[in-house]
């Protein structure tokens, strides 16, 4: 992946606000990522981090009363935020696809699976009836639905969660989009089904050179599927890096804290306490000056009150919003202030 290749998706300085009776609240305060063609990028964060909003911003699907108040979203060089509604519709139909968390409500219960697929093909791709029918069956087969001819006549409630998610994926990728947004696609599924869906997504991405933005709170999922990961906290991006680099050495204290607090099967029988991040995630109502992670950070310094949460590169392809760099270079000898042990 050369740096010279133009990015597929470029988000910069994104800010998403909600108007409430108590004033404006920012769900995403200032965030940006870039994605290359065919890349699988994970967006990981906890509740309130802004990851879902960020994902939806790509398609401008922010529910009211939210709005994008600042930033740039560019897809293949085109300004998404400036698109007219017909351009946007075409964009959503052909260039980007999206799948959601809940496989039970994302398909219309009163239409057969096959018909929902055919509708997309006819409306978005302008295929004729017979053509759409054949293509629909191909798509169903491609996402691993056995006996597509018979299955396409079923209604959504006759399918299991995993099958519905496959249908969702078929619908979303029917028009061969270059980017697929996957918002917690496996959270509601059993672990065995989850594994299958993740494999499917990986395969489709490789086969079609389709980029995938995978949003999840589950680091294990991200690590299994993604090439790179962006960690979000409090409406900002705290760190971006290849998955391997994050495991070898995360640069942002939040990323480290998060990784350490993830339960691991290997711990079985060894009864040790999980290291935890003390405190609680930030309140979206309050805007803090300086580093939004400071209240919980064991490495915080007074100078952290002036931090701008801008991402700085540590190495090519690895950026962090933490200027203290307690694990790297000059800051590497720093010991944490209060018992965060590795």
């Amino acid at each position, binding site marked *: 992946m050369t740096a010279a290749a133009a990015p597929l998706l470029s988000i910069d300085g994104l800010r998403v606000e909600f108007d409430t009776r108590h004033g404006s609240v920012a769900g995403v305060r200032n965030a940006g990522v870039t994605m290359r063609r065919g890349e699988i990028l994970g967006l990981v964060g906890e509740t309130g981090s802004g990851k879902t909003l960020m994902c939806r911003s790509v398609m401008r699907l922010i529910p009211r009363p939210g709005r994008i108040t600042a930033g740039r979203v560019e897809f293949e060089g085109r300004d998404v935020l400036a698109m007219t509604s017909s351009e946007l519709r075409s964009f959503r139909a052909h260039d980007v696809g999206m799948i959601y968390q809940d496989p039970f409500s994302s398909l219309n219960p009163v239409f057969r699976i096959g018909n929902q697929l055919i509708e997309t093909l006819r409306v978005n791709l302008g295929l004729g009836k017979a053509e759409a029918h054949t293509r629909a069956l191909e798509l169903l087969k491609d996402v691993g639905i056995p006996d597509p001819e018979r299955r396409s006549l079923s209604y959504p409630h006759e399918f299991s969660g995993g099958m519905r998610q496959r249908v969702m994926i078929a619908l979303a990728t029917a028009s061969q989009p270059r980017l697929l947004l996957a918002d917690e696609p496996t959270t509601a599924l059993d672990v065995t089904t989850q594994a299958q869906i993740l494999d499917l997504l990986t395969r489709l991405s490789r086969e079609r050179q389709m980029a995938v933005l995978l949003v999840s709170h589950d680091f294990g999922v991200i690590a299994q599927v993604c090439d790179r990961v962006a960690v979000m906290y409090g409406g900002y991006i705290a760190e971006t890096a290849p998955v391997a680099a994050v495991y070898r050495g995360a640069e942002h204290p939040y990323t480290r804290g998060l990784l350490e607090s993830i*339960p691991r099967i290997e711990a079985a029988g060894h009864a040790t306490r999980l290291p935890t991040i003390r405190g609680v995630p930030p309140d979206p109502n309050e805007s803090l000056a300086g580093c939004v992670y400071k209240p919980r950070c064991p490495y915080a310094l007074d100078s952290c009150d002036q931090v701008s949460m801008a991402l700085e590169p540590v190495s090519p392809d690895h950026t962090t919003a933490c200027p203290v760099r307690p694990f790297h270079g000059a800051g590497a000898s720093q010991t944490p202030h209060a018992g965060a042990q590795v």
Partner: protein
Amino acid sequence: MNGSPALLRVVGLRKGFGLRRTLAERISRTETDPVLAVDDVSLELRRGEILGLAGESGSGKTTLARCIIRLVEPDSGTIELEGVNVREAQGAELRELRRRMQMVFQDPYSSLNPRMTVGAAIHEAGRVHNRPGSEDRDQFVGAALERVHLSPRLAKRRPRELSGGQRQRVAIARALAVGPELLIADEAVSALDVSVQAQLLNLFLDLREELGLSILFVAHQLAVLAEIADRVAIMNHGRIVEIGDAGAVFGDPRDDYTKALLAAHPHPRLSDVA
């Protein structure tokens, strides 16, 4: 722990749910087998032990947990709490048994009455069971909250003003307020963020040490059980397919289903992890 008598004994527990029968089936009097949510389950929980109960959705683990405290009535089998027959208890005896086995539910957003303040909910629990100290409301509630590492100032709040992690702590405080010996955590951390989940898991371990609680920890995430459980039971289709020390079950599984579960657990691609 070895050799100490079992606090909870379950033998041959069965619970089935009747399938809806179509009109035609009813007329022709066709017999449809009920779906067995819990199929001949036996297990033991010793004092001070944390037993993990793992399984995917539909495995029957939640039904099993609810049968134990008779939130759902089992069809057959034995449940004994320190020798006392749970299934046959009625009235005051049942109430006392329930006091000794408390449950913490999964959904932090619906496990607390939205119309009651935290303090009211906790105090009520103490009063209904005449717990020592419950006459002094502020003292009782304050102590209960501090036991779960929450500030007593939260007593005046309502659930909607609290985060998911805080609500779960309140739910635990409410359960502890009646002085149970056994805590059943039914997916109690599954709906929480990872960092909050870690805090709650440590809390459960603390409570086990400080209060000598036994815990039946129901969860679908194997890693969570690996961190907290002494022993683990794996459920599939209503049956326990494997049970043993956590290290043994996860490190050297015997049953094919257990192996499949472990294999499906998301893990980083091997080449990536140092």
